[in-house]
């Protein structure tokens, strides 16, 4: 162990203040880890120079896997030899991010032996991030993790680690079993996750209701968002309780309903369910009185992603409703067709949402064998530049 107390005047400022400090975390890992200490030193340099000191990652990994490790090298490695190589391991989290204390300790022990002792709980995609180690440690870490029942997550042009909201485990609004679907799909695509087969990354997230507590619509190529088909379940007496407890049902519920399909006459709450767009607002406000309907399932949405490179996209409706018990099969069948199409027509580094944008949704639907339906668009086209096909094939 070199010097236990690196000089970090700037970073020390970030130990002050009430919010828990990441600097304290690095220092605490530094008690047993030289790389955590050098990380702190390099970070201090970055704070002084207002500049990162990591070089472009190289290809590192474990045997037989094409992903799961992010290679990272310092550009000031001579100065901070313990972070000269500082690769990150992505470990597939348990669905819903549930743990026992033992599971946590097992992970800690492995990581203390093989790496910096620093983690992210969790990465933005959902993985357990084991932050920083050297190439020779990768394979041993991986094998110890495997022995403990853990496996690596995705990186590169692969099926990325799916994630899901807490769903049925602790939420009364779950319209399908998100944790289970997330787990089943993760297991179904181990090969696609570990041996990158795609033109670019493919993400999948499961939110069990339209509140979308995993930001699926914004961050996943396939977003599976729970919803229901039938009528909102109303407990009349609970409605009355809310009203007498002082909730202004007209103002706080009815007036904020996006389709104005609710009516409150001071006694009874009426809902025109066929106008309801399943936004969740009324249910969110009155959880004891209102609940999603009983005909539950999910809407499948496609194409969500960050800005690079054609601009950010929110996912858009692909299948407006799939019943809960048909979700696994339907999603698998669709993924097969989507990936085939993407494989054939996608450019290098082109997310599936960008591909759809480039070739057009109608062509994509043709490709995956779905019929166009009005639910897929916010409105039909407003420009008259229509590529009539019948005419192209000859007059009809």
């Amino acid at each position, binding site marked *: 162990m070199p010097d236990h107390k690196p000089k970090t005047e700037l*970073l020390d400022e970030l130990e*002050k203040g*009430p*919010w*828990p*400090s990441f600097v304290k*975390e690095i220092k*605490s*890992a530094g*008690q047993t880890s030289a790389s955590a200490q050098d990380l702190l030193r390099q970070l201090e340099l970055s*704070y002084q120079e*207002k*500049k*990162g000191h*990591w*070089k*472009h*990652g190289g290809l590192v990994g474990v045997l*037989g*896997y094409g992903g799961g490790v992010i290679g*990272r090298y310092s550009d000031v490695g001579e100065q901070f030899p313990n972070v000269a190589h500082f690769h990150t391991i992505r470990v597939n989290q*348990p669905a*819903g*991010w549930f*743990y*026992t*204390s*033992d599971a*946590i300790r097992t992970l*800690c022990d492995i990581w*203390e032996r093989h790496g910096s*002792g*620093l*983690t*992210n*709980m969790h990465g*933005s995609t959902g993985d357990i991030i084991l*932050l920083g180690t050297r190439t020779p440690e990768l394979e041993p870490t991986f094998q110890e993790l495997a022995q403990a029942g853990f496996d690596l997550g995705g990186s590169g042009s692969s099926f990325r680690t799916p994630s899901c909201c*807490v769903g*049925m485990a*602790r*939420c*009364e609004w779950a319209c399908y079993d998100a*944790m289970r679907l997330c787990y089943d799909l993760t297991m179904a695509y*181990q090969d696609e996750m570990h041996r990158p087969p795609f033109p670019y990354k493919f993400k999948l997230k499961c939110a069990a209701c*339209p509140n*979308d*507590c995993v*930001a699926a*619509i914004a961050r996943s190529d396939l977003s599976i968002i729970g919803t229901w088909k039938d009528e909102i379940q109303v407990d009349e007496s609970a409605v009355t309780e809310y009203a007498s407890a002082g909730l202004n049902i007209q103002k*706080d519920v009815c007036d904020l309903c996006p389709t104005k399909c609710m009516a409150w006459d001071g006694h009874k709450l009426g809902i025109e369910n066929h106008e309801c*767009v*399943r*936004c969740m607002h009324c249910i969110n*406000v009155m959880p004891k009185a209102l609940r999603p309907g009983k005909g539950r399932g999910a809407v499948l949405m496609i194409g969500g992603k*960050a800005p690079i*490179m054609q601009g*950010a996209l929110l996912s858009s409706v692909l299948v407006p409703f799939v019943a809960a018990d048909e979700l696994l099969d339907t999603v698998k069948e669709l993924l097969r067709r989507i990936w085939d199409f993407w494989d054939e027509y996608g450019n*290098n*580094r082109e997310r599936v949402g960008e591909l759809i944008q480039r070739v057009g949704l109608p062509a994509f639907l043709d490709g995956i064998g779905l019929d166009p339906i009005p639910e897929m668009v916010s409105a039909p086209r407003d420009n008259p530049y229509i590529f009539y096909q019948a005419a192209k094939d000859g007059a009809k």
Partner: protein
Amino acid sequence: MSATTEPRITDIGPPHYEKYLHPLIKKNYGQWKYHENLAPGVYCHVAESGDRIYTVRAGTPRLLSVQTLRIFADLADKYSGGYLRFTSRNNLEFLLDDPVRIEPLKQELIALGYPVGGTNNAISNIVHTQGWIHCHSSATDASGLVKCTMDALYERFTHEDLPAKLRIAVACCLNMCGAVHCSDIAILGVHRLPPKIQPTLPRVCEVPTLIAACPTGAIRPAVVDGKHSVTVVEQQCMYCGNCYTVCSAMPMNDADNDGLSIWVGGKVSNARSAPTFSKLAIPFLPNNPPRWPEVVEAIVKIVDVYAKHARKYERVGEWIERIGWPRFFQLTGFEFTRYHIDDFKHAALTYARSAHVRY
């Protein structure tokens, strides 16, 4: 390959979640009836069976040492039968079957420096990225920005007094690892100089790939010292860094010109209004570590103005939509500049195409 070596374990996937579920959760899985918010950071979920599970939520810096994780494990053993989880925003949750343990757990968490809160209409933890801790692309540090912003917003985490949920995110470059593009408030690291092309391109950097990587077509083939290379038409570069992502010989970092931009009004949930992107509030603030005072001031300003003017249940974007963007700029005092006007692909769709004007 010898038949005697133990087979190497691969492709086993993650552990099955059931192993980690509290027995009370396993019993009532999918049978929850409703929930109550007992206090900031404390929830009670009631099952059809009448069972109740209590959740205590604490903020974390996300970057956690094994030492700290072990402390969490010990707390779980002490208070929640060893069961804990993390949330989609990197908070820590303990799952209790006995309400009597809530208060002692809270006190111990607070004493250890982990604030209890982040539920309901509090500001929850900031979703963020690697920054100078681990990424080569970063224009700023994410963890540092989170720390100073949350220090300033601490009371907003431990109290639930905002009109609605308010989600903040930080990303250290335009790759936006997280949901910065759909956050109530987002802090985004930006470069402001074109890549500095290194004299010789490594072999992995293929010229056609590089040209295809540029969203604005700013990259042109060139021959440098007799070798195939590229140049960048500086007027066409908007510093997205995508060329650097595909080729290490195009670094973007620049101490003086890197900095932050602030975005507002995005959301993800379908509650009331449709999910929507965050929009530009401040195009540039300087990178000013360790405490980024300009950034923190701007965020606090937005939160305060929002807290004061928004109606109940109005997310930031819904509030601005109601009062109009001109008023948002008035109320915050932020300057409206040429940069606020979109000039990318669908720019023309953002021009104000009605005579609906407020004075």
